[in-house]
């Protein structure tokens, strides 16, 4: 087998005016000693140093694979395949999406195309959010909400322009939509690049380390957000067959409304822990070695999506417990 070196790809998303261009300029101009390619839409500037700017049109198409919500970005497949032919290897690739874009097709591209999946890997979705305007943007534009829901890292930017109380409110709002993103508070997107790039957030191994940060008791019903998250924990081992049956059907029928899922599962009579993560209907799952000794085995499951209340998730999950 050839040595599988995969170039990490960071997806940079965020609503109009949040500060994506500021961050891109930083990535392109800072002395970081790394070689990056930046795939942009109509970006006026040229790369400085050794960096590479590639112009793309954000073009999505629907796969004819019977999966109703499986849209992917063909232009990204073309450009990533091209970049892999370079003589000098890239340290990372950054894909900028436009302010009104849904991040799902970019993520799905990495599940769908074999060449892209062999040679590159989705590293993380980084969402730049405007601390001043995020609350109103979430209310008015479903795209802004989706970008928060998909983020592995959320740069809460422009915090110098708002009071601390506002930052708290916005942070809580983000947490309610997305309990497992890492939130970094910044002015002028001034976070160290190592907290943004090369995070390996989509690797199944990393899921073992992430503890969702739920605001348990703090249910404020001030805002009725469209996208929410739900999580479930069970100390009773699950029946594998029942779980696969329930979860498979769930993604098949509700995959459009379920944006992201992550989980660690404890199946009855299995020594390994099972880890999975998914984007809409597409899922990546694998056994990840034995349970650590002395630690209690348990299953944890997180959903981010729309209309989660209508899916009887709790009941469905309960039914998967082994008798």
């Amino acid at each position, binding site marked *: 087998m050839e040595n599988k070196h995969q170039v990490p790809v960071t997806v940079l998303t965020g609503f109009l005016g949040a500060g994506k261009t500021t961050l891109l300029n930083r990535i392109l101009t800072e002395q970081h000693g790394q070689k990056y390619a930046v795939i942009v839409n109509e970006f006026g500037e040229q790369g400085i140093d050794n960096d590479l700017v590639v112009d793309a049109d954000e073009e999505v198409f629907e796969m004819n694979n019977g999966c109703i919500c499986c849209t992917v970005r*063909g232009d990204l497949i073309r450009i990533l395949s091209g970049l892999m032919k370079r003589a000098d290897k890239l340290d990372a690739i950054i894909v900028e999406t436009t302010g009104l874009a849904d991040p799902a097709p970019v993520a799905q591209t990495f599940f769908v195309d074999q060449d892209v999946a062999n040679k590159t890997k989705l590293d993380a979705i980084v969402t730049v959010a405007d601390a001043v305007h995020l609350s109103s943007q979430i209310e008015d534009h479903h795209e802004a909400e989706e970008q928060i829901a998909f983020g592995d890292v959320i740069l809460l930017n422009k915090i110098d322009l708002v009071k601390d109380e506002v930052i708290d409110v916005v942070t809580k709002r983000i947490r309610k939509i997305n309990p497992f993103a890492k939130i970094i508070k910044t002015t002028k997107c001034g976070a160290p690049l190592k907290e943004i790039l090369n995070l390996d957030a989509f690797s199944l191994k990393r899921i073992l380390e992430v503890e969702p940060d739920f605001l348990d008791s703090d249910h404020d019903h001030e805002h009725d957000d469209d996208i929410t998250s739900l999580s479930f924990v069970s100390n009773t081992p699950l029946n594998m067959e029942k779980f696969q049956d329930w979860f498979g059907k769930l993604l098949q029928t509700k995959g459009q409304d379920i944006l992201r899922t992550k989980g660690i599962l404890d199946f009855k009579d299995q020594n390994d822990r099972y880890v999975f993560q998914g984007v809409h209907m597409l899922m990546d799952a694998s056994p990840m070695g034995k349970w650590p000794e002395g630690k209690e085995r348990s299953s944890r499951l997180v959903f981010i999506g729309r209309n989660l209340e209508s899916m009887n998730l709790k009941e469905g999950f309960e039914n998967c417990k082994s008798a």
Partner: protein
Amino acid sequence: MTADVNQFPALDKTKFEQRGIEFKLGIPVTTAVSVGNSIAVGFGDGSVRIFTSGQSSDAIKAHKGIVLCMSKDGNHILTGGDDGRFLKISLDGVVKEIGNFGTRWVDNVTANNGSLVCSSGKIVYLWSPNNKEPKLFEHNSTVGGIAFDTKGKRLAVSRYDGVTLWKKDYTKKWVSSNLIWKGSHNKVSFSPDGKYLVTSMQENAIRCWRLKDKIDFAMSGYDRKIKSFAFVGETSYLATSGALGMGVAAAICWPFDGEGPMGRQPTCISYTGNNEVTVVEPFPSENAIFAGLSDGSVFLSEIENKNNTIIIRSFTGSEVSAIAVTDDSSSILIGDMNGNILWTSIWDK
């Protein structure tokens, strides 16, 4: 599929390798095109080299990053790169810039009756011999591939959801019609008789249109995306990559003679090993194909007598990325992703 697998004893070097000349350049080969008895090779550092009689020219500095595509124009070559430039290069290394699109890549280049043609983004640009400014052909999504029919009268442009077919009407104005099939279409080609148009799709399938009545159908059942296909021989087969099974890679060849491929079975030429066919290249004037595999090996097979298969190049460990045969069919050049190049004569002396 397993009944007629071609098996070979483990060889150190084939006779073709023994009598050929090998280059270890360490730069990925991206494309190769024959021009007379020379072969031009494009690389992943933006350079081009011309190989003649087993000798390499110095590297011609063509593009900044990657030579993405290459085509022949008389005794010159055309190249497109990731620096957004469309170039015309002579065999002695004189580079002329035809177009420059900045940060937008040039993904396809070709020549047609003296015109120079390329695609960048959603637009195909055509420079006629007497016009300084190119004619623009615009499309709704990024161009996957471009192809002229053998007479050079029709231009096919693949894109999302099908193909745009351009031709000149009686007033010599270019007009377009659409061939529609949902999804992303990559490479496109006319059959040599001009009766069919085929595209390779993102979904592990070839889409084919019969142009007289625009009936379309799929050639499917592939395990992988079809990276390479080519029309081969006088009876005309469409040879394709993209098929593999348990321990077997295959080139699938569809018959395009008579009533065409509809409802007919393809010929399957198989090769052992856990590999994939990455490049198919016709052997000019023969009903035979060269198949390059993901492990670096290259085979020559007759389509109608597939047991007549010989190994040209053995395992190198690096994916074959380009194969070209000189115009007089005397020599072959093979390049891979690690920059190994083999030049060898095809016929025994």
